[in-house]
Protein backbone atom coordinates (compact mmCIF):
# COMPACT_ATOMS: atom_id res chain seq x y z
CA UNK A 1 0.00 0.00 0.00
CA UNK A 2 1.35 3.45 -0.80
CA UNK A 3 0.30 6.82 0.55
CA UNK A 4 0.53 9.95 -1.58
CA UNK A 5 1.05 12.18 1.52
CA UNK A 6 4.15 11.48 3.58
CA UNK A 7 3.44 10.32 7.15
CA UNK A 8 5.05 13.38 8.78
CA UNK A 9 2.94 15.74 6.72
CA UNK A 10 -0.25 13.87 7.67
CA UNK A 11 0.58 13.98 11.37
CA UNK A 12 1.33 17.66 11.12
CA UNK A 13 -1.98 18.30 9.43
CA UNK A 14 -3.92 16.30 12.02
CA UNK A 15 -2.19 18.19 14.79
CA UNK A 16 -3.16 21.50 13.28
CA UNK A 17 -6.74 20.42 12.60
CA UNK A 18 -9.34 22.17 14.83
CA UNK A 19 -13.11 21.75 14.61
CA UNK A 20 -14.78 25.08 15.25
CA UNK A 21 -18.57 24.59 15.19
CA UNK A 22 -20.71 27.72 15.15
CA UNK A 23 -22.03 28.62 18.59
CA UNK A 24 -25.63 27.55 19.15
CA UNK A 25 -26.94 28.61 22.56
CA UNK A 26 -30.35 27.03 21.83
CA UNK A 27 -28.91 23.57 21.13
CA UNK A 28 -29.36 22.17 24.65
CA UNK A 29 -32.94 23.49 24.86
CA UNK A 30 -33.80 21.97 21.51
CA UNK A 31 -32.46 18.57 22.53
CA UNK A 32 -34.46 18.62 25.78
CA UNK A 33 -37.63 19.68 24.03
CA UNK A 34 -37.27 16.80 21.57
CA UNK A 35 -36.74 14.34 24.42
CA UNK A 36 -39.85 15.70 26.16
CA UNK A 37 -41.88 15.39 22.97
CA UNK A 38 -40.86 11.76 22.63
CA UNK A 39 -41.72 10.78 26.19
CA UNK A 40 -44.92 12.85 26.67
CA UNK A 41 -48.22 10.91 26.32
CA UNK A 42 -49.69 11.48 22.88
CA UNK A 43 -53.33 12.01 22.06
CA UNK A 44 -55.11 8.70 21.17
CA UNK A 45 -56.20 10.05 17.79
CA UNK A 46 -52.61 10.92 16.99
CA UNK A 47 -51.60 7.45 18.14
CA UNK A 48 -54.26 5.88 15.90
CA UNK A 49 -53.06 7.96 12.96
CA UNK A 50 -49.50 6.85 13.49
CA UNK A 51 -50.43 3.18 14.15
CA UNK A 52 -53.31 2.54 11.72
CA UNK A 53 -52.65 -1.16 11.18
CA UNK A 54 -52.76 -2.40 14.81
CA UNK A 55 -55.68 -0.11 15.67
CA UNK A 56 -57.75 -1.15 12.64
CA UNK A 57 -56.86 -4.80 13.20
CA UNK A 58 -58.00 -4.62 16.82
CA UNK A 59 -61.32 -3.07 15.78
CA UNK A 60 -61.83 -5.55 12.94
CA UNK A 61 -61.14 -8.52 15.21
CA UNK A 62 -63.47 -7.10 17.87
CA UNK A 63 -66.21 -6.59 15.30
CA UNK A 64 -65.82 -10.11 13.95
CA UNK A 65 -65.70 -11.76 17.36
CA UNK A 66 -68.70 -9.75 18.60
CA UNK A 67 -70.78 -10.54 15.51
CA UNK A 68 -70.00 -14.25 15.55
CA UNK A 69 -70.67 -14.48 19.29
CA UNK A 70 -73.96 -12.56 18.94
CA UNK A 71 -75.19 -14.76 16.11
CA UNK A 72 -74.09 -17.95 17.86
CA UNK A 73 -75.75 -16.90 21.11
CA UNK A 74 -79.04 -16.07 19.33
CA UNK A 75 -78.95 -19.37 17.45
CA UNK A 76 -78.20 -21.33 20.62
CA UNK A 77 -81.05 -19.62 22.44
CA UNK A 78 -83.47 -20.33 19.57
CA UNK A 79 -82.42 -24.00 19.57
CA UNK A 80 -82.82 -24.19 23.34
CA UNK A 81 -86.27 -22.53 23.20
CA UNK A 82 -87.36 -24.74 20.33
CA UNK A 83 -86.16 -27.89 22.09
CA UNK A 84 -87.95 -26.95 25.31
CA UNK A 85 -91.18 -26.24 23.44
CA UNK A 86 -90.96 -29.42 21.32
CA UNK A 87 -90.49 -31.46 24.48
CA UNK A 88 -93.41 -29.73 26.15
CA UNK A 89 -95.57 -30.18 23.03
CA UNK A 90 -94.89 -33.92 22.89
CA UNK A 91 -95.51 -34.17 26.63
CA UNK A 92 -98.99 -32.64 26.23
CA UNK A 93 -99.81 -35.32 23.66
CA UNK A 94 -98.06 -38.10 25.58
CA UNK A 95 -100.62 -40.79 26.52
CA UNK A 96 -98.91 -41.27 29.89
CA UNK A 97 -99.86 -37.75 30.92
CA UNK A 98 -103.44 -38.32 29.82
CA UNK A 99 -103.91 -41.37 32.03
CA UNK A 100 -102.95 -39.50 35.19
Amino acid at each position, binding site marked *: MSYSVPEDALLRRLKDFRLRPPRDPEFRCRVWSRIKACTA*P*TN*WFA*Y*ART*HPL*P*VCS*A*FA*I*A*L*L*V*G*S*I*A*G*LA*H*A*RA*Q*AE*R*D*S*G*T*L*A*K*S*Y*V*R*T*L*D*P*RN*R*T*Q
Partner: protein
Amino acid sequence: MRNLGITLALASVVCAFAFGICFAVKHNRELHQAAISNDTRAWLHAEFHLNDGQLAAIAKLQGAYSLRCDEKCAAMMSARRRAASPHELRQLESQCLEDMRRHFQDVAALMPPGEGERYLASVLPYVAAVEDAGTPSVRLEH
Protein backbone atom coordinates in the same frame (compact mmCIF):
# COMPACT_ATOMS: atom_id res chain seq x y z
CA MET B 1 -49.15 1.91 26.97
CA ARG B 2 -52.03 4.24 27.79
CA ASN B 3 -53.01 4.40 24.13
CA LEU B 4 -52.85 0.63 23.87
CA GLY B 5 -55.23 0.43 26.81
CA ILE B 6 -57.59 2.94 25.18
CA THR B 7 -57.46 0.94 21.93
CA LEU B 8 -58.32 -2.29 23.76
CA ALA B 9 -61.13 -0.59 25.66
CA LEU B 10 -62.59 0.82 22.43
CA ALA B 11 -62.23 -2.59 20.77
CA SER B 12 -64.18 -4.12 23.67
CA VAL B 13 -66.94 -1.55 23.15
CA VAL B 14 -67.01 -2.37 19.41
CA CYS B 15 -67.15 -6.09 20.28
CA ALA B 16 -70.07 -5.59 22.71
CA PHE B 17 -71.89 -3.39 20.20
CA ALA B 18 -71.48 -5.96 17.40
CA PHE B 19 -72.65 -8.70 19.76
CA GLY B 20 -75.76 -6.72 20.70
CA ILE B 21 -76.67 -5.81 17.13
CA CYS B 22 -76.19 -9.34 15.78
CA PHE B 23 -78.05 -10.89 18.70
CA ALA B 24 -80.95 -8.45 18.28
CA VAL B 25 -81.14 -9.12 14.53
CA LYS B 26 -81.00 -12.91 14.84
CA HIS B 27 -82.93 -13.31 18.11
CA ASN B 28 -86.39 -14.87 17.63
CA ARG B 29 -88.45 -12.92 20.18
CA GLU B 30 -91.70 -14.70 19.40
CA LEU B 31 -90.10 -18.08 19.97
CA HIS B 32 -88.44 -16.96 23.20
CA GLN B 33 -91.72 -15.52 24.46
CA ALA B 34 -93.45 -18.80 23.57
CA ALA B 35 -90.80 -20.71 25.53
CA ILE B 36 -91.25 -18.48 28.57
CA SER B 37 -95.05 -18.86 28.54
CA ASN B 38 -94.83 -22.53 27.41
CA ASP B 39 -97.20 -21.73 24.54
CA THR B 40 -96.90 -24.59 22.04
CA ARG B 41 -99.35 -22.96 19.61
CA ALA B 42 -97.11 -19.88 19.47
CA TRP B 43 -94.16 -22.23 18.98
CA LEU B 44 -95.82 -23.83 15.94
CA HIS B 45 -96.59 -20.38 14.58
CA ALA B 46 -93.11 -18.93 15.18
CA GLU B 47 -90.98 -21.95 14.39
CA PHE B 48 -92.81 -23.35 11.37
CA HIS B 49 -94.24 -20.13 9.94
CA LEU B 50 -97.85 -21.29 10.01
CA ASN B 51 -100.79 -19.07 9.17
CA ASP B 52 -104.05 -18.94 11.15
CA GLY B 53 -105.76 -21.38 8.76
CA GLN B 54 -103.05 -23.97 9.18
CA LEU B 55 -103.05 -23.48 12.96
CA ALA B 56 -106.83 -23.95 13.04
CA ALA B 57 -106.55 -27.14 10.98
CA ILE B 58 -103.86 -28.43 13.34
CA ALA B 59 -106.00 -27.59 16.38
CA LYS B 60 -108.85 -29.56 14.80
CA LEU B 61 -106.55 -32.54 14.20
CA GLN B 62 -105.35 -32.30 17.76
CA GLY B 63 -108.94 -32.38 19.05
CA ALA B 64 -109.64 -35.54 17.06
CA TYR B 65 -106.38 -37.07 18.27
CA SER B 66 -107.26 -36.28 21.88
CA LEU B 67 -110.58 -38.14 21.56
CA ARG B 68 -108.86 -41.17 20.03
CA CYS B 69 -106.15 -41.09 22.65
CA ASP B 70 -108.68 -40.81 25.49
CA GLU B 71 -110.46 -43.90 24.18
CA LYS B 72 -107.21 -45.83 23.97
CA CYS B 73 -106.12 -44.68 27.39
CA ALA B 74 -109.50 -45.73 28.87
CA ALA B 75 -109.11 -49.14 27.20
CA MET B 76 -105.64 -49.44 28.67
CA MET B 77 -106.77 -48.52 32.17
CA SER B 78 -109.63 -51.01 31.95
CA ALA B 79 -107.18 -53.68 30.75
CA ARG B 80 -105.01 -53.03 33.78
CA ARG B 81 -107.97 -53.15 36.14
CA ARG B 82 -109.01 -56.56 34.85
CA ALA B 83 -105.34 -57.69 34.97
CA ALA B 84 -105.08 -58.31 31.25
CA SER B 85 -102.12 -60.20 29.82
CA PRO B 86 -98.85 -58.29 29.37
CA HIS B 87 -99.09 -58.98 25.65
CA GLU B 88 -102.47 -57.22 25.43
CA LEU B 89 -101.16 -54.28 27.45
CA ARG B 90 -98.08 -53.95 25.28
CA GLN B 91 -100.29 -54.03 22.21
CA LEU B 92 -102.50 -51.24 23.56
CA GLU B 93 -99.46 -49.16 24.53
CA SER B 94 -97.79 -49.52 21.17
CA GLN B 95 -101.10 -48.60 19.47
CA CYS B 96 -101.19 -45.46 21.59
CA LEU B 97 -97.65 -44.43 20.62
CA GLU B 98 -98.27 -45.34 17.00
CA ASP B 99 -101.36 -43.13 17.05
CA MET B 100 -99.27 -40.29 18.48
CA ARG B 101 -96.66 -40.75 15.74
CA ARG B 102 -99.37 -40.81 13.05
CA HIS B 103 -100.86 -37.63 14.50
CA PHE B 104 -97.50 -35.88 14.15
CA GLN B 105 -97.26 -37.04 10.54
CA ASP B 106 -100.78 -35.70 9.87
CA VAL B 107 -99.80 -32.35 11.41
CA ALA B 108 -96.60 -32.27 9.33
CA ALA B 109 -98.68 -32.86 6.19
CA LEU B 110 -100.58 -29.62 6.90
CA MET B 111 -97.38 -27.57 7.06
CA PRO B 112 -95.64 -25.84 4.16
CA PRO B 113 -93.11 -27.95 2.24
CA GLY B 114 -89.90 -28.31 4.18
CA GLU B 115 -91.42 -27.17 7.47
CA GLY B 116 -93.22 -30.50 7.92
CA GLU B 117 -89.90 -32.37 7.78
CA ARG B 118 -88.40 -29.93 10.26
CA TYR B 119 -91.41 -30.38 12.55
CA LEU B 120 -91.06 -34.18 12.47
CA ALA B 121 -87.33 -33.88 13.11
CA SER B 122 -88.16 -31.73 16.18
CA VAL B 123 -90.85 -33.92 17.74
CA LEU B 124 -90.08 -37.52 16.76
CA PRO B 125 -86.92 -37.75 18.90
CA TYR B 126 -89.10 -36.99 21.94
CA VAL B 127 -91.58 -39.71 20.90
CA ALA B 128 -88.62 -42.08 20.83
CA ALA B 129 -87.73 -40.79 24.30
CA VAL B 130 -91.29 -41.59 25.47
CA GLU B 131 -90.81 -45.15 24.25
CA ASP B 132 -87.41 -45.40 25.92
CA ALA B 133 -88.71 -43.98 29.19
CA GLY B 134 -91.44 -46.56 29.43
CA THR B 135 -94.90 -47.13 28.10
CA PRO B 136 -98.14 -45.83 29.62
CA SER B 137 -98.98 -48.97 31.55
CA VAL B 138 -95.73 -48.74 33.49
CA ARG B 139 -96.89 -45.36 34.81
CA LEU B 140 -100.32 -46.77 35.74
CA GLU B 141 -98.72 -49.24 38.12
CA HIS B 142 -97.76 -46.37 40.46
